[in-house]
């Protein structure tokens, strides 16, 4: 999977109440094929992950926040809608009538890490990983005729999986005490 270049822009990290959150002025992940699918009226799922590591290259995060976002595009209103899928239907959060930029920001705002999970006395790095989950990958495998092995092999053996967009960005080092504090947007991560 080839990560998309997010340019030289910095991942802005701030504290929002009890949560560490990130923002990017021009993340622009709503583009290309996922955007085409959305404008055809389909749903597109994004997987977002925010991790905290002690070194820039560490593979073992000390804290993590994962969010699965379901996006769709209103054919008539020409605005986006987004839902963060939770473990239960009650834990879902949604927003609608959004522009592309507002939708992207909403996803980032909903990837928060509880400040109690951040090291109080050490420097740390913040890493953002966003990728598209292809609904068609899984919907074609299981159906009334059973498990379609051709689709399964096609998906696992697909060399062009890199064509699935992925966005990566790291920033740091930060210290907890130095983080900018903003107004409280919410109490959940």
């Amino acid at each position, binding site marked *: 999977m080839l990560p998309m270049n997010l340019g030289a822009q910095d991942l802005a990290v701030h504290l929002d109440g009890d949560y560490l959150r990130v923002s990017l002025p021009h993340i622009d992940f709503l583009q290309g094929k996922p955007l085409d699918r959305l404008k055809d009226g*389909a749903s597109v799922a994004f997987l977002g992950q925010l991790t905290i590591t002690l070194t820039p290259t560490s593979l073992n995060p000390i804290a993590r926040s994962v969010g699965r976002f379901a996006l*769709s595009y209103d054919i008539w209103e020409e605005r986006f*809608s987004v839902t963060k899928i939770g473990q239960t239907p009650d834990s879902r959060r949604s927003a609608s009538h959004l522009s592309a930029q507002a939708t992207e920001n909403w996803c980032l705002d909903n990837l928060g890490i509880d400040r109690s999970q951040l090291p109080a006395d050490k420097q740390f790095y913040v890493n953002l990983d966003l990728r598209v989950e292809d609904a068609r990958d899984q919907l074609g495998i299981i159906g009334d005729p059973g498990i379609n092995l051709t689709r399964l092999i096609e998906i696992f053996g697909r060399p062009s999986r890199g064509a699935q967009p992925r966005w990566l960005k790291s920033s740091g080092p930060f210290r907890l005490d130095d983080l900018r504090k903003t107004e409280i947007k919410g109490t959940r991560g």
Partner: protein
Amino acid sequence: MPVFLLWVLRNTRKTGRVAVQCEATFAESSSIRWWRGTAPFALLLSTAVSLAAGQGFMRQVAETNINQRYMIESVSLGGIELDRMETSKLPITLRDRLKALIGQKCDMAALENLSSEIRRELHFRTVTEHLLKGSTPEQVKVDFDLVRGDTSFDVSVPRVLYTSQEKVTGELDANVGFHQNNLTFGVVSNGDDLIERFTGVAARFDSAPLGPGKVHAGLKFEDYHEQWNAATVAVADGTGLDLYRSRWSVAPQLTFAVAGPVTISVGASFEQMESQSSTIGSQSANAATLDVDYGRKIESATVQQRIEGKYSLRVATRALGSTYAYARHMILFKYEARSGRNVASDEFIGGAIAGQAPLFDRFVLGSSSTLRGWDRFEIAPLGGSRVVHNELTYGYRVGEGTVEAFYDAGALWQSGGEALLRHSFGFGYKQGIFVLATGFPIREGRMEPVFMAGMNY
């Protein structure tokens, strides 16, 4: 009393195999072993669970689509509206399902499933659903974008079943589609449907619609090797029933869509059996066949009902060169009602054989769908020539799946013999095509449950 179900992978010292075991633990000290299976089953189960979970997530994603609030105004395939499509270009059942979308809310999960179905049935390389603005706000048009491939090729596992009694039953199919024709080659090992376990190959050809689109031709070929249970072997002697070692068959069939929900299939089945005994040699069961199928859905705002009926007849006659001469009748009736999270169904089967049929055509109870929990070889190790069975199921939807409780009652007997009604009950969990269930036979003495895990069973 806390109960924990544990899946334990163990390397059994006696057999050297890796086994998976499900234990119900009461408190922390005592446990009851429910059943034990082998590692391939653990792999099947974990694959099924992860695929079902992924499927469930994608369904949730589709369900959040903002366009679901709009009404579907029209449906088209490749830009051609359904009403303007030639009848022969689209199977009737698929056309009916697409037509039924019009006037309904735009269910994206249903549209995605239909895209897969169109791709599979019409052999397109890809099918993608597109929404377009309708003629008035609050309405959308659905267009399935079609990318043609001359042929399609799929390898699939259509059915898998594990039971703690009969072990694994499964099928692997390779399907080639061309111009709405279908050719399927499969390998099968089935210890569930008949009194024997049959293992071998099967091939099936299903034609594109012939003429005005209401007739289909089919041809089926099967070649199986049989394995007999010790209980069957012990009682077969002197009954005149031959425990053949292999059998093959060729069955041509024509299917007519008569009127709406009714289809009628007529055909023939030429079955050849090779006996284990050299004195008996080859025997045949050549029959004329008739199947009448009925299926109807009745949907209201609060209740969705489904009614299915089937009558099948096989008449083996010496006029067709058959060694066996018999007539086998079977009827099935199923009613299902869904309302909110509740689903209830009742399925009745009844059958009778006049004359002496070979073992593969005799009736069986104690399978994954009849008298669940019973051992078929205890009920009738040679099957029976008369059967009645009723299955009553209640399910309650929980999250992505359905928790079910069932009650089975049935009798299997010989013509002129005494019918003994048996009962069983059980519970299970169904998610999509996957099912886990445990059946308990109602009987005096020790009640040993049968665990079942399967796909499309």
